[in-house]
């Protein structure tokens, strides 16, 4: 360490980092002396805060009390509200619109290029970022300024639940995190249970209509769809593969899913598709199997579970009405057979020839 | 230096003789050159051997029809190409031995100008002729300005020294280009077909100017041209080239022989002697 100090003796620009680094170094030594041989620093709460590793592998020094939080993405803001920590939220982005109260919080810019100064002006104890929408440069720059940045990287729905738990731990409210995650997990399990005996529905998730773009297998959305009992009809390693309408005709999805920000409700979308050549001859369009989903499906946030539940109901109406039938008739096997008969037959898959 | 001093001359005689001895600016001795045309089927083009000399205050024409090797000879004299055999000397030093900058101080070559990209004033353009003197990155001195001013005066362009180059007429621009060459204060002034785009009035004006410049200064002027009449009227000597061969070198009256000219220029010509002793070439009628 002293070599580094000597080497940079005349560098005024790095004076700051050096000083900060020196303090961190001393703190670590202090902690090591006080605590003895601490195997993992992740849970040590003594001294000047603790060091955790965030979901992209960056080491973050968390202050002992996290009273001021800034979020850099809408899903993170939602999570904070869901955890009941909105009083600690001092700033978010101008894209954070759920819940509505988030819009009145102090804005630091948009998620892609927030203003570092605005963040600094809020004196945050912790800044939350996510790989799905924020840039690495932003997190690096904040780290250079000595501000704690925790980056989440949810790739699946389960990953999202883990992220929520991690965030709660980092902020210092692990129990609230466990409660929230527990409830969300329960609801997801309930949906899974309902759908356990039903085959997956094949859907075309439309990211953009012209040019036609859908999702790949390894995306967060694909995972969310799976929880709702749907499988994307296109198998692709790319994140946002483009395809032609011919491919859609060949694949014949059972349902077509649009997101809300397309500006229309399902009825309008359906009418629009019915007017287009080729589209109107698709099975899904003829049967009116066009579903509209909130754009929350893209967000790894607690609201996603609402979306999954709603979508599951729309895609598998009989799975949920069957439950009612079971309760009312008490004759499980009869209705089960009847439901099977009318369930979508011969769901086509992309790979097999049927 | 040409000529020999008599051995029994008095002490002062050599100085007087030396003063009257014209300085030899250019000596071309059996220079030859050859290059292959780009089209392989066409034959190699060969020039030479050519021999002649130019002294200060002489205006010499390198005369010949198109593709006779005039421009090639000019490039040899200017040092752009090295002759395959023979020697070319400027002020007694072989041209190929001189480095680029020094050569620019001794030889000024005037060509048809390229288009200027950015606006430039006349005096700025002429001042660029002083580049060969001094360091590479240089700011012009008072002496540079003096020489540039002189050059402008000599071509009669002093009146429009502050005008923009692109606003000049063709004739004015040519004078300015000439002035830049003069600002180099060369030993040899070379011009390659300078009368190409001029009308007869312009041609005469140019040659008159070159004659005057040659008379009043201490350099030699070489003009590459195919203008028979102008060359005869204004030049001291003619170098006649035909298909790469140097056919004759001498005063116009010596060179302009009807049969010779007809063969070289492939046109029905008649040669007359004017009262001033200079030949005139006329197109023979009735053909």
């Amino acid at each position, binding site marked *: 360490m002293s070599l580094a100090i000597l080497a940079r003796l005349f560098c005024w620009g790095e004076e700051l980092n050096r000083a900060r680094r020196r303090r961190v170094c001393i703190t670590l030594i202090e902690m090591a002396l006080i605590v003895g041989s601490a195997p993992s620093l992740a849970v040590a709460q003594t001294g000047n805060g603790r060091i955790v590793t965030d979901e992209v592998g960056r080491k973050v020094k968390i202050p002992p009390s996290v009273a001021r939080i800034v979020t850099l993405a809408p899903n993170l803001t939602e999570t904070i509200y869901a955890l009941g920590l909105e009083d600690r939220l001092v700033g978010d982005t101008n894209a954070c619109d759920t819940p509505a109260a988030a819009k009145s919080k102090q804005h630091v810019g948009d998620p892609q290029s927030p203003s570092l100064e605005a963040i600094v002006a809020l004196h945050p104890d912790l800044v939350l970022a996510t790989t799905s929408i924020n840039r690495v440069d932003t997190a690096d720059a904040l780290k250079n300024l000595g501000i704690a940045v925790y980056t989440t990287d949810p790739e699946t729905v389960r990953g999202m639940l883990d992220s929520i738990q991690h965030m709660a731990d980092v902020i210092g409210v692990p129990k609230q995190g466990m409660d929230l995650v527990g409830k969300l997990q329960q609801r997801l399990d309930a949906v899974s249970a309902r759908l356990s005996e039903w085959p997956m529905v094949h859907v075309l998730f439309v990211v953009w209509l012209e040019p036609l773009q859908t999702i790949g297998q390894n995306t967060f959305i694909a995972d969310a769809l799976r929880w709702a009992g749907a499988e994307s009809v296109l198998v692709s390693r790319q994140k946002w593969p483009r395809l032609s309408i011919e491919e859609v005709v060949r694949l014949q999805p059972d349902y077509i899913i649009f997101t809300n920000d397309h500006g229309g409700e399902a009825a309008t979308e359906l009418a629009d598709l019915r007017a287009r050549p080729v589209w109107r001859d698709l099975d899904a369009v003829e049967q009116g199997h066009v579903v509209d989903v909130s754009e929350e499906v893209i967000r790894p946030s607690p609201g996603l579970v609402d979306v999954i539940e709603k979508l599951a109901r729309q895609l598998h109406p009989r799975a949920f009405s069957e439950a009612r039938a079971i309760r009312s008739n008490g004759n499980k096997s009869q209705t089960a057979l009847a439901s099977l008969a009318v369930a979508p037959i011969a769901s086509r898959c992309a790979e097999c020839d049927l | 230096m040409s000529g020999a001093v008599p051995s029994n001359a008095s002490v002062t005689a050599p100085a007087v003789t030396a003063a009257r001895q014209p300085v030899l600016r250019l000596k071309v001795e059996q220079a030859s050159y050859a290059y292959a045309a780009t089209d392989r089927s066409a034959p190699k083009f060969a020039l030479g051997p050519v021999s002649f000399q130019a002294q200060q205050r002489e205006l010499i024409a390198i005369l010949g029809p198109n593709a006779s090797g005039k421009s090639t000879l000019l490039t040899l004299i200017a040092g752009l190409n090295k002759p395959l055999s023979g020697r070319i000397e400027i002020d007694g030093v072989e041209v190929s031995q001189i480095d680029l900058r020094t050569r620019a101080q001794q030889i000024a070559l005037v060509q048809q100008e*390229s288009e200027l990209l950015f606006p430039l004033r006349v005096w700025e353009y002429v001042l660029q002729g002083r580049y060969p003197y001094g360091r590479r990155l240089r700011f012009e001195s008072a002496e540079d300005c003096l020489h540039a001013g002189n050059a402008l005066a000599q071509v009669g362009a002093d009146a429009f020294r502050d005008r923009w180059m692109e606003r000049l007429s063709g004739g004015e621009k040519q004078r300015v280009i000439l002035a830049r060459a003069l600002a180099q204060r060369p030993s040899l002034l070379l011009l390659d077909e300078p009368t190409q785009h001029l009308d007869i009035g312009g041609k005469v004006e140019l040659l008159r100017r070159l004659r005057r410049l040659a008379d009043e200064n201490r350099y030699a002027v070489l003009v590459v041209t195919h203008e028979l009449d102008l060359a005869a009227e204004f030049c001291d000597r003619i170098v006649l080239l035909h298909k790469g061969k140097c056919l004759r070198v001498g005063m116009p009256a010596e060179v302009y022989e009807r049969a010779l000219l007809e063969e070289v220029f492939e046109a029905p010509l008649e040669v007359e002697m004017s009262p001033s002793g200079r030949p005139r070439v006329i197109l023979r009628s009735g053909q």
Partner: protein
Amino acid sequence: MRPLTPQRVAWICIGLAGVLFAAMVISLRVGAYPIGVRDIVLTLVNGVLRHWDAIPAEFRDVIFEIRLPRILLGIVVGASLATAGAGFQALLRNPLADPYVLGISSGSALGAIIGLIVAPHTPGAIQVAAFVGAGVTTAAVYFLGRRGGQLDSSTLLLAGIVTASFLSAVIMFMMTTLSGRDLRGMAFWLMGDLASRPTVDSRWLYLVMIVAVGSIYTTASDLNLILTGEQEARHLGVNVNRVKLVVYVAASVLTGLAVSVSGAIGYVGLLVPHLMRMMFGTDYRLLIPTSAMGGAILIVLADALARTVVSPTELPVGAMTAIAGAPVFIYLMRRRVR
């Protein structure tokens, strides 16, 4: 007859340095974090004297960690681009030439994309990869742009345009077929952005810039002559081939430098030389230093604007130069035609 003198060059440079200083002051003053002029001055003074304890940590952060590095980066980028633009305009004998016409920005972007894919979390990998990309493109275009063993202006221009198109196509291909998430940052980088702090110490950037600008400056007299005609320049004793090579390499280095740390900021390299010509004349002995300073001033002001016009969102600085640059360019074009 008033030829250019070193004194005149010096005075004009001092004047422009003053304007640059004013631009720096303005840029230091504006931003999302509220800090008054008095506090700025105190922070600067204490910072220079290293009395870090005398100023609040946040003032120090905002001034020395956020604003000042950005301004200093902007200066080196602006000066590099403008000088490179002036150099290329002479080298290619084309007033419409800008630093990117020879494909350096595309090559740099391709390098950055490859760096982003291969080592997304290694700090500085992208910038190094971008600079390497610029270097490779420079070499490739050099070999393509030769004619008879020497750099030929028209051949070079064609080679550069073809290379730029090819590389752009490759970049398009890569951006559509590869993971969308990794390349989101590229959009900002391709437009030109000063927010990313380079991992290389600014001092090295300044050193390289000064050396490169100095190299071009040594050919300033030569360039003046070459602009009146290459053959004529040769006859006046200019070593045209050597001059072209020096300008090509130096201008490419400057462009590669600027693009690797801040992306392809447009219009600076094209417009600043023309503006300086309109104000101070076409003599390269004056044009090179004035372009450098003019470019620095422009970027500093454009960046200040980019940071404040839709605060707190920050626009990429390339967006500002494009918005302001396009009308100015049209105006200049019309003036020429007239």
